[in-house]
């Protein structure tokens, strides 16, 4: 599907070597607009919202920060390890503001599964609905996020419907 020149510019920012070594697209050959639409539909299908997912990621990160790199026990059954390094990264979507380089690893002790995400991931998911391209090492599948982080489903947003006079 064709996308706007602005999206093309953002997709160029996501290529390897521009912001990070491997970029944000992995081996995904689709256009950014398609990737966003596909993941958006997937998130809707799971009964979640981008903001809701990002909020949960943030919540677990903040609970684990005090460990400064040590695994911290977070109720009810999580182990969270938060690491950070110096320096900041820009968001490929081209707006101002830099994101700290912080990695959060959450291990769900009940299921035994583990997932790792960065602060930039949290921002790109909550602000832009972007989960990285397929094949990227930092790609986050919405279904995995839902399962491992145990994100509760949110009620769907009310649809606009007909204006009162036209009903």
């Amino acid at each position, binding site marked *: 599907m064709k996308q706007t020149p602005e999206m093309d510019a953002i997709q160029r*920012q996501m*290529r*390897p*070597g*521009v*912001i*990070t*070594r*491997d*970029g944000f697209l992995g081996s995904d050959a689709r256009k950014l607009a398609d990737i966003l639409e596909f993941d958006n539909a997937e998130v809707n299908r799971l009964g979640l919202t981008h903001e809701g997912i990002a909020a949960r990621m943030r919540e677990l990160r903040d609970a684990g*920060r*005090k*460990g*400064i*790199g*040590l695994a911290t026990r977070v109720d009810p059954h999580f182990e969270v390890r*938060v*690491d*950070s*390094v*110096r*320096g*900041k990264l*820009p968001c490929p979507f*081209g*707006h*101002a*503001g*830099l994101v*700290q*380089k*912080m990695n959060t690893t959450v291990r769900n002790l009940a299921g035994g599964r583990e997932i790792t995400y960065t602060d930039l991931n949290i921002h790109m998911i909550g602000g832009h609905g972007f989960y990285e391209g397929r094949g990227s*090492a*930092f790609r986050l599948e919405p279904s995995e996020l839902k399962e491992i982080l145990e994100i509760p489903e949110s009620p769907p947003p009310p649809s606009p419907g007909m204006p009162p006079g036209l009903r």
Partner: protein
Amino acid sequence: MLTAFLISVGVMCAITTVLAVLMILADATIANYGDVRITINDSKQITVEGGRHLLATLKDEQIFIPSACGGRGSCGLCKLKILEGAGDPLPTELPWLAPDEQRRKVRLSCQVKVKNPLRIEIPEELFNVKQYEAEVTAIRDLTYDIKEVRLKLLSPAAISFRAGQFVQFEVPPYELSNEPVYRAYSISSDPGKEDEIEMEIRYVPNGICTTYVHRHLKTGDKAVVNGPYGDFYLRDTNRGIVFVAGGSGMAPIKSILHQMLNEGNRRTARYFFGARAVKDLFLLDEMKDFQSKLPDFQFIPALSEPGPGDDWSGEQGLITDVVDRCLETVDNTEAYLCGSPLMIDACIEVLKNKGMPGELIYYDKFA
């Protein structure tokens, strides 16, 4: 028939040629900005060739404005006050400029094109910043993920910096990255040795610079750095000193320790070095050496997660807990912190809880 064909082709060529000449003329006059005068701080005046962005133009004049993204408008570090001559802020600049910055005529120098005479303001300390061409003389492993890189400066051949400052290291295009990128690293070497600098660079997965340094850089390679930058340095007082730095955060501390040795500094100093396991410890011999040569310096390493085979009898626990436990007093003491943002935030909290005033806690912030 043939004549008709030739006439039509001839006329087309003539028309296109005339138009092409017209465009060349236009390019040479309208798009040619000629020489432009830039007035700096209302005192210094330079004349430059117009048409390029201010950041690149100043770089050619040996004035180095900090930049991490190399002029692509994605780091916001190259802000300068442009009082006259720059027109309105571009759409690419506006997201980076707060309303009060816009009022004070702050602009992103990598987006502003030099066309009309400019009046700009440059902070004094940036005039000491130079670009150095250097050669890699040594790369050695400090740990499994930290390398120490030593550069011999070629041109200019000497650098004068304060212990604690950092340089911007230029990563040339390599593999998949095709534009240069800049990353900041603290200088870990002795400020007294002006012809070389050392940096401690830790490998970060998916990092553009650290991958270059750890997988591609070899001794003998040429490197470009610019600096020195930063206001993290030892303040000239008589207070006791607390250093807290882990991993590659040791770099500026080591440089400061060299400086203390050089000037015979007698201040009390404690260095709390936080690491995870024994394999994360390094330069222990150098630290022992400082301990023996400085009148009142102690190096206190602490492990937060010793490995199964680690035989460790030193301090254990999170570095913040160790500082809390072992630091006897914060009276008349200043703190110098360097390391990951999480560690720095946690340390500031601990020190403030012990009664240290915030103004006496110095930490290294690159951007």
